[in-house]
């Protein structure tokens, strides 16, 4: 139980509109990721849902009930902060139990719930430690444990992995994924990292300057970005964007082609280019080239392509994987 619906939600700080009219449905049990560049309003949107900020106008419905004007604690949502926001003076047990204490639950119930959460998160041995005695990953788990015990309608994650190193980030990503599978609770996850978004989400919400640019599953966004913004934002390395004659002849103002959808040849092709550098990753090679008349491009070549800087190559896009955009940056065709 935990569907969340936003109806024309607006938020402005003074004269600055941070969120301008967001309509969004987050289905019960789904893992939804808010993604966008910094300053797009994704964290503010999360805080509006949490109740840590007021909406300037619009409605927030939780389970179909209007929650716009009720306090954060009464919304039945739990939040995991970027900084973890653990209470430094309380033990792990105290941190996890705090919400239950505030809700005046009986001591034995609290104890039982804390133990269960600690069990799920492998924290049983650390219950009496203070947060400062824990590693980054353990702190992260305590923050999640604090959320779990409240049995919330939805979990809100605000860039929870950005303070971890790369290896730990991958591991925690998996753990959060597992948690979602076992709890089946609605989760909303904010990140600026499109890889996190692609790997974790059932539904991705791409935000641009306070508005929803596109909502969809990871593959929908990858295959059918509805505009240049999403096209550029989703996918790594970034989609190649071409304007000029090549776009004109295809009846578009701009065309986009992902690095993996460019065919590379040493003899002939649509665009001539010079190799700047080739990055050999083993399984793939990313080739950064300077195209003649089309500017810098990135090509993903299979295997261990032998290319030297300065070498002339030819590129040809796979026609049916081309994305066409009109002069306003909107997608043309299906």
């Amino acid at each position, binding site marked *: 139980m935990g569907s969340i619906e936003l109806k024309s939600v607006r938020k402005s*700080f003074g004269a600055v509109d941070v969120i301008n009219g967001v309509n969004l449905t987050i289905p019960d049990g789904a893992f939804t990721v808010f993604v966008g560049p910094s300053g797009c309003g994704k964290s503010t949107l999360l805080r509006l849902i949490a*109740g*840590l*900020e*007021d909406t300037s106008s619009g409605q927030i419905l939780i389970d179909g009930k209007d929650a716009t004007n009720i*306090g*954060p604690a009464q919304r039945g949502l739990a939040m995991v902060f970027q900084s973890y926001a653990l209470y430094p003076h309380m033990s792990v047990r105290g941190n996890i139990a705090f919400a239950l204490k505030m809700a005046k639950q009986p001591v034995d119930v609290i104890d039982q719930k804390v133990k269960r959460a600690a069990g799920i998160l492998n924290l049983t041995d650390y219950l009496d430690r203070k947060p400062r005695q824990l590693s980054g990953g353990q702190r992260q788990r305590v923050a999640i444990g604090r959320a779990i015990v409240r049995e919330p309608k939805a979990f809100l994650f605000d860039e929870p992995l950005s303070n971890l190193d790369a290896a730990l980030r991958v591991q925690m990503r998996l753990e959060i994924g597992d948690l979602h599978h076992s709890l089946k609770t609605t989760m909303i996850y904010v990140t600026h990292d499109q890889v996190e978004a692609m790997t974790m989400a059932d539904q991705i919400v791409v935000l641009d300057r306070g508005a929803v640019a596109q909502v969809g599953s990871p593959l929908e966004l990858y295959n059918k970005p509805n505009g240049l913004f999403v096209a550029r934002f989703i996918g790594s390395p970034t989609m190649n964007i071409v304007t000029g004659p090549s776009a004109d002849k295809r009846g578009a103002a701009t065309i986009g082609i992902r690095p993996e959808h460019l065919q590379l040849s040493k003899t002939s092709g649509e665009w001539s280019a010079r190799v700047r550098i080739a990055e050999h990753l083993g399984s793939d090679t990313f080739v950064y080239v300077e195209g003649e008349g089309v500017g810098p491009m990135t090509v993903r070549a299979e295997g261990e392509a032998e290319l030297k800087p300065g070498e002339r190559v030819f590129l040809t896009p796979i026609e049916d994987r081309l994305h066409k955009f009109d002069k306003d940056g909107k997608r043309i065709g299906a």
Partner: protein
Amino acid sequence: MATQQTRVAGRLLVAPSVILLFLWMIVPLAMTLYFSTLRYSLLDSDNVSFVFLQNYGYFLSDPNFFSALVNTLVLVGSVLVISVVGGILVALLMDQPIFGQSFVRLMVIAPFFVMPTVSALVWKNLLMNPVSGLFAWIAHSLGLPAIDWFTNWPMLSVILIVSWQWLPFASLILLTALQSFDEEQKEAATLDGAGAIPFFFYLVLPHIARAITVVILIETIFLLSVFAEILVTTAGGPGVATTNIAFLVYKQALLNFDVGGASAGGIVAVVLANIVAIFLMRIVGKNLES
């Protein structure tokens, strides 16, 4: 950055402090301003009349006011010079890798915690007494005549006492500022072949300039209203030799019972303090930004 509810709570919680301080500041100040326009003596409190600016005229044209103003400036200026220059030297010395630094620090900071009445009386009697004081004995031991401090050098005596109280403050704050001086910068300067003197003037002094400003301004605020030290040592004398503005207003009010005149003097003191305050607020305000 919060909800309406927390914002309202914020206003409510800050209100008691603001209201109390506002009343504390505005009510007496308004009364002082009002009294300063009255002929009002506590000895003759049935006979109060409005005289507009006459009290200011009397107060400002009183030769005692002029000498009190000079005394105030001399006291503030001398103590500032002694404590800041002395403080820089003491702080530089303590910033060296000396043995038992923390113990030296304890000794240096100690006088700041001594209440003004104690330091004044201890200095006046145990140290500066012309017959049995320690200074007299030292003078005699060196074959010099003992100095009758409070008779011949009353202002200097007060300045010494007050400087002793404020030198620790300056030392402590300047030492703290010095300690934040980047060690690598020091090493770089040594490698560049900077001698001790240029090193101090080109690198150290600019680094602690802000702390020095803060010390000067804060000390000035307190030094403008030095009172207890004068009350228990000289009572403003001999004559008016050590009467500063604070003490002059006190005398006018509680010894001469002249409410109107004392109030006018009080307002003058407020104006003087405000001139300093404006500078201090600028500095501290800048710190808020960073």
